[in-house]
């Protein structure tokens, strides 16, 4: 079954930022959306999360229309936005509990969920610290943990490792890898090695259009490149594969 399907999905502000996007992502897959700045990746995520209305076209999340079934979709997805999205004056524990409360969990389920995510994301050492006092890497970790609280079937990670040092990035990679198979994951990133290391399939966007889709290996073969970075540059320069 397809977790995500878009049909000529278009967003126009003053200019067209997403142009007749036709994308299909299979359930359970980890899909990376790549592109240079302004390619339209974040706008695609925002439309699929029902944060932004499409100008034209349609999108479906697990068969639900992003135009008509926003409330249903909100119960199926988890989102970690590009900027870290935590409540700064709340502790890590309180941030996790806040999301549990918003999803209407019982006290018991809330405790279980907080414990489970604290262990999975190894948050014990910062558990009682206010979010605003944490480093960028820890905040991002908490932010992704919060995205998982609603037990999403589809998880959107918008630039999850942006601005992190190499160690923090590798630690987050491990965590993201551990999520594979538990949900369909749509990841946007600027880091090519991240997409190559984590994603089952990669889509490349340029000027709002999807110009290539395939596995990292398939994209390298199609462009005749020796490595994925060369393949990406070739795809973006030539505009289509």
């Amino acid at each position, binding site marked *: 079954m397809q977790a995500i399907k878009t049909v000529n999905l278009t967003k126009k502000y003053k200019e067209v930022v997403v142009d007749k996007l036709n994308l299909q992502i299979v359930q359970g897959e980890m899909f990376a959306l790549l592109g240079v700045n302004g390619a339209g990746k974040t706008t695609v995520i925002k439309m699929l*999360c*029902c*944060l*932004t*209305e499409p100008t034209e076209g349609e999108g479906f999340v697990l068969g639900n229309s992003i135009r008509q079934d926003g*409330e249903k979709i*909100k*119960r199926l*997805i*988890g*989102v*970690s*936005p*590009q*900027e*870290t*999205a*935590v*409540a*700064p*004056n*709340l502790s890590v524990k*309180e941030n996790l509990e*806040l*999301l549990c*409360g*918003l*999803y*209407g969990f019982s006290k018991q389920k809330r405790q279980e969920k907080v414990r489970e995510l604290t262990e999975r994301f190894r948050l014990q050492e910062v558990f009682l610290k*206010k979010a605003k006092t944490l480093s960028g890497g820890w905040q991002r970790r908490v*932010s992704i943990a*919060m*995205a998982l609280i*609603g037990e999403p079937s589809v998880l959107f990670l918008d630039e999850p490792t942006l601005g992190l040092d190499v160690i923090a990035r590798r630690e987050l990679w491990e965590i993201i890898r551990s999520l594979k198979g538990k949900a369909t994951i749509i990841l946007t990133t600027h880091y090519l090695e991240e997409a190559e290391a984590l994603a089952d399939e990669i889509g490349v966007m340029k000027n709002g259009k999807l110009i290539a889709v395939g596995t990292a290996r398939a994209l390298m073969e199609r462009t005749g490149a020796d490595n994925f970075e060369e393949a990406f540059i070739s795809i973006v320069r030539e505009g289509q594969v």
Partner: protein
Amino acid sequence: MRIFVFAKRCGKEILRDPLNLAFGLGFPIVLLLLLTAIQANVPVDLFQIQTLAPGVSVFGLSFITLFSATLIAKDRESALLQRLYTTPLKAVDFILGYMLPIVPMAFVQGGICYLVAFALGLPIHVNILYACLLLFPVIIFYVALGLLFGSILTVKQVGGICGALLTNLSAWLSGVWFDLSLVGGAFEKIASALPFVHAVELQRLAVSGAFPQALLHALPVLGYAAVIIVGAVFLFLRQMKKQ
């Protein structure tokens, strides 16, 4: 239920910011102490404690707008609100969640003003309790203003508009610090057309026990509060859609 979860979070965010406590409680208390000291040396009718305390209790509420607007603007500028828009929270949950926790804080702020005023010589009387209850329309006005400004301004703009402009308007056009009739003319007419002076008069008359007259001053405050609430809800929903 979700409203209360969100409201609790908003309350914690505000109360855990030491600047909010300093301005929300500290500043009105300092004003009361300072002006009472001046009054002791240079008597001015306006600064007698039964006139001053109701004015400061209203003036202090202008900081409530600042807290509320800053929190909303910060949430909008960080990605937190974006995240929360993808949860099952509905528009009404957001609006009430932002407004609800500030109402008791505002009552506490007003109550503390009167408690300090007791220590400074304000006679303890049941009228003060009624005056506190009659803060409600004023509180709603200032809280709704917070929602409105928080929905359209950046954090920096909130600092300027609510932190400087609104507090100055609340000061100059309310008759707390000087008698508006001394200026007279267009200034007095403009002040009478705005809610600030009515809010202060509402409190002063309630403290003195003149409740029928006090309620007359409640009407313009309630009218402004209703208009601001409608505007604030409209603007909040508009920015929510724009996200």
